[in-house]
C-alpha cells in the first residue's frame, strides 16, 4: 500500500484527542464499561466525538477542528460536563492521568473490534499493557514537506511537552520514581521512537514503501512515533503527552504547541538536522524521569540547561505569536504549572495526605469531572 497523498489543511488548526480512564465507583479500579458509556453518549450534543480504545476500560474523545484557546477550552469543558453526567448515570467515574496507579494489566479486556483484535494478536501482552492514557494533539499543515520540516524542528521541544503533561508516577501500586512512566509502555513497542530524518514527502514515501515491502508495517497507524504525520487529516500529531488531570491544561498544552509551531514556521530560528537526534533520547529520558526538574542539552549549542528554564525562555520567544493566536491565557496556564508543578507532582502530594491509593484515584477523578 503506497503512502497516501498529504491532504492540504489550514495551517495551525488544532485537534485534541484525550484517552480517559473509566473507574469503578466502589474501589476506583479500572472497569470495562466503555460500551455502557458509549451507549449513553450516542446522542450527545456538540461537534466532538467519542470512541472506544484498545481496552474496554479506556475511552477516547476527539475535539472538532479548533483555532484558538478559548473555543477549544470551552468545547473540552462542554464535553467534560456531558461525559461526567453520563458516567454518573451508569455509576462510573472518569479520570485523566497517564496510568492507573494500581490496575493490573492482565485483568484488562480487549475491546471487540477488528483492529484491536489484530493488535492484541500481534503484540500479545503488550497490547494489554498499553492500558495507558495519553493526549494527542494534531496541528494542521499545508503540505507534506512542511509537515516533515515541522516534525523534525519540534523534536527539540518534545521534552517540554513530556514534562508539562506528565501525570503517571504510579504503576501497579508503586511509585516508579518517574514523572511519566506511561512512556515506558509506549517505548516497548517495536515501531516507537522517532521518524526517520527525511524532509520531503516524496522521500518519506520511499521510506514508507520500503517498510511496507518488508511487511513490517501496513499503514501509518502502525508507527508509534512521538510525532507522527497524519496524511489523511493533513496534520502532524504530537503523541508524547500524558492525559492531564484537567481539561483546561489539555487545552493549554495544545495552544502552547500551536504558538510554538507558528514561531518555528515564521521565524525559522534553526534548520533541523539529523544530528539533533543525538541528544534526543537523553533529553526525553530526563523529562520522563525528572519532569520539570530535568535537564536538557540543546542540540545546536550543546549547552545543558534546566528544562524549566528552557520552557521559560521558549515562552518568552513565542509570546508575540501566542498573542496573535489569542493564546496568551494558555501560556499563562503553562507558566503557572512551572511553579505549581505538573500533575505527577500533584498526585504525589495527594498521596502524602491520603495514604490509600483508591483515595488518590478518587481525588484525581474528582479533579477531572464536574
Amino acid at each position: 500500500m503506497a503512502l497516501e497523498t498529504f491532504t492540504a489543511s489550514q495551517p495551525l488548526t488544532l485537534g485534541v484527542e484525550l484517552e480517559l480512564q473509566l473507574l469503578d465507583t466502589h474501589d476506583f479500579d479500572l472497569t470495562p464499561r466503555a460500551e455502557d458509556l458509549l451507549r449513553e453518549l450516542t446522542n450527545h450534543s456538540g461537534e466532538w466525538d467519542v470512541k472506544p480504545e484498545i481496552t474496554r476500560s479506556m475511552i477516547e474523545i476527539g475535539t472538532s477542528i479548533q483555532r484558538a484557546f478559548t473555543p477549544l477550552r470551552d468545547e473540552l469543558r462542554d464535553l467534560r460536563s456531558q461525559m461526567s453526567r453520563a458516567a454518573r448515570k451508569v455509576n462510573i467515574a472518569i479520570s485523566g492521568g497517564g496510568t492507573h496507579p494500581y490496575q493490573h494489566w492482565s485483568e484488562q479486556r480487549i475491546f471487540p473490534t477488528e483492529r484491536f483484535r489484530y493488535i492484541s494478536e500481534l503484540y500479545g501482552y503488550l497490547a494489554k499493557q498499553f492500558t495507558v492514557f495519553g493526549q494527542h494533539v494534531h496541528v494542521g499543515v499545508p503540505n507534506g514537506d512542511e509537515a516533515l520540516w515541522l516534525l523534525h524542528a519540534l523534536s527539540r521541544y518534545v521534552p517540554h511537552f513530556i514534562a508539562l503533561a506528565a501525570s503517571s508516577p504510579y504503576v501497579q501500586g508503586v511509585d516508579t520514581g518517574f514523572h511519566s512512566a506511561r512512556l515506558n509502555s509506549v517505548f516497548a513497542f517495536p515501531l516507537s521512537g522517532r521518524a526517520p530524518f527525511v524532509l520531503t514527502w516524496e522521500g518519506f514515501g520511499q521510506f514508507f514503501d520500503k517498510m511496507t515491502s518488508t511487511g513490517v508495517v501496513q499503514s501509518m497507524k502502525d508507527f508509534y512515533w512521538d510525532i507522527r504525520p497524519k496524511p489523511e487529516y493533513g496534520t502532524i500529531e504530537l503523541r508524547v503527552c500524558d492525559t492531564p488531570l484537567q481539561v483546561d491544561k489539555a487545552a493549554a498544552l495544545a495552544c502552547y504547541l500551536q504558538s510554538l509551531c507558528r514561531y518555528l514556521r515564521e521565524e525559522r530560528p534553526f534548520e533541523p538536522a539529523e544530528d539533533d537526534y543525538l541528544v534526543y533520547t537523553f533529553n526525553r529520558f530526563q523529562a520522563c524521569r525528572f519532569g520539570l526538574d530535568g535537564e536538557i542539552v540543546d542540540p545546536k549549542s550543546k549547552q545543558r540547561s534546566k528544562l524549566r528554564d528552557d520552557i521559560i525562555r521558549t515562552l518568552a520567544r513565542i509570546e508575540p505569536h501566542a498573542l496573535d493566536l489569542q493564546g496568551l491565557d494558555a501560556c499563562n496556564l503553562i507558566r503557572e504549572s512551572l511553579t505549581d508543578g505538573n500533575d505527577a507532582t500533584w498526585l504525589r502530594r495527594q498521596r502524602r495526605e491520603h495514604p490509600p491509593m483508591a483515595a488518590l484515584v478518587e481525588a484525581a477523578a474528582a479533579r477531572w469531572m464536574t
Partner: protein
Amino acid sequence: MPGASAAAHPEPPLYPQIVDWFVTLLRAPLAGLRGADPVLGLAVVVLAALVLASLLHRRLRLPRLLGYLLVGAIASPAALGLLQRTDIDPWKPLIDLAVAALVFELGTRLRPRWLLDNRWLAASSALEAIAAGVAVWLALVALGAPKASAAAAAACAAATSPVITMATFLEARPRGQVAERLLMLSAINCVLAILAIKLWPVLAHTRVLSAPESLTLLANAGAVIFGSLLLGLACGVLLDRLGRLHDEAATMPVLQLALVIVAALLATAWGLSPFVALLVAGMTARSRMRHRLTVQPYLGSAGAALTVMLFVSFGLLSTVEDWRALWPWVLAIVLARLIGKGAAIFATARPSGLSWRQAAALTLALQPMSSLSVMLVADSFGWRTQLPGAEPAVIQALLIATTLMQLSGPLWTLWPLKRLVGEAVDDEPHER
C-alpha cells in the same frame, strides 16, 4: 413453623424402595446422634455440604452455594427427612448473624447517590417491586386465592433474596452494571417488601379499619423504618469512630462483626427491622469511612463459615407439602414474578442506560426469592408472626415457590452474569 397447614396424613414418598432402605439406615445413627447432641446432626450435614459443594464445583462448574442448598434440601423433611426443622433452632442466632453480615456488606457496596444521578434507575427499582407484587396478586386472585392472603404473598414475592444475591456476588466477583444494579435493586425491593408486609392489614383490608386504626398502623410502620434508619446510622458512625481509634487491619473485621451483632440484636429487641438497620449501617460506614473501610468477604472467615450454615439451613427449610394441590398457585407466583419484574426492567431499560441484553440478564438475576416469608412464619429475625388471618394454603404455596426459587437461586443469578453479559468469569480450574 413453616407449613403450619401440615397435611393430616403424610405424603406418599417420592422415591423408590431402595432409597427408603438407605434412609432408614442413616436415620438410626442420626437419631442416636441427635439424642446425644442435637447440634451434631446439623454439623454433620454442614460437613457433607462442603464436600458435595466442592465436588459439584469442580466437576460440573456449579456454584458452591448450590451444593450447600442441595444438601440442606436433601436432608430436609421434604426429601430424606434426615433432620427436622426444629434441629436448626439452636443455630438460629448464628444464622441470623450470617444474614446480618451479608446485609451489612451489601450496604457497604451501595452508592445511594446513584439513584439521584439516574432517576430512571430509581424509578425502575420501585417499579419492578411493585409490578412483581401486583402481578403475583392478580395471578393468585385469578386462580381463586382470597384477596387478603394473596396480598401477603404478593408483598413477600416482590423481594429478591439479598442473601443469595450477595453470597453469589462474593463467590463470582462480577464487575459491571448488571451486577451493581442487582445489588441496588435487591436492597430496595426488600425494603419495599418489608414496608408492604408491615402495612399489610391496611393493604389487605382484612377487616374494616377505622381511620385511627389505619393511622396507627401507618405511624407504626413509619416508626419502625425511621427507628431502623437511626439505629443503622448510629452503628455506622460508631464503626467510623472506633475504626479511627483502632487503626489496624487485623482488628477491623472483628470490629465489624461485633457491630453487626449489636445492630442485629438491638433491632430485634426494639422491634425494628434488622434488614434496614444493617443496610443503613453499611451505607453509613462506607460514606463516612470511604477508603479506610476495608470489608473482607463475609467479614472474614468466621462469616464465611456462618454463610455455609446459613445456606444449608435455607435448604433445610425447604418444603413441598401439598404441592399436588397447590402447584397452580406456585406456578402463578413464579411466573407472575418473572413477568412483572421483566416488564418493569425492560420498560425502563433504555432510559436508564441498559442494553436489552443487560435488561434480560438483570431480570433473570432478580428471580431468587427471599426467605422473608419463611422468616415471618418461622418466627426468627424478630418479626413476630405478622399474618393472622392469612390463608395457610396461600402461605404454603408461597413457601413452596420460595423453596424452588431459593434452591435454584444461585443459578438464576450466576448464569446471566457469566453467559449473557460476561460480567463474571469462570474460575480457573484448580490443579491438584
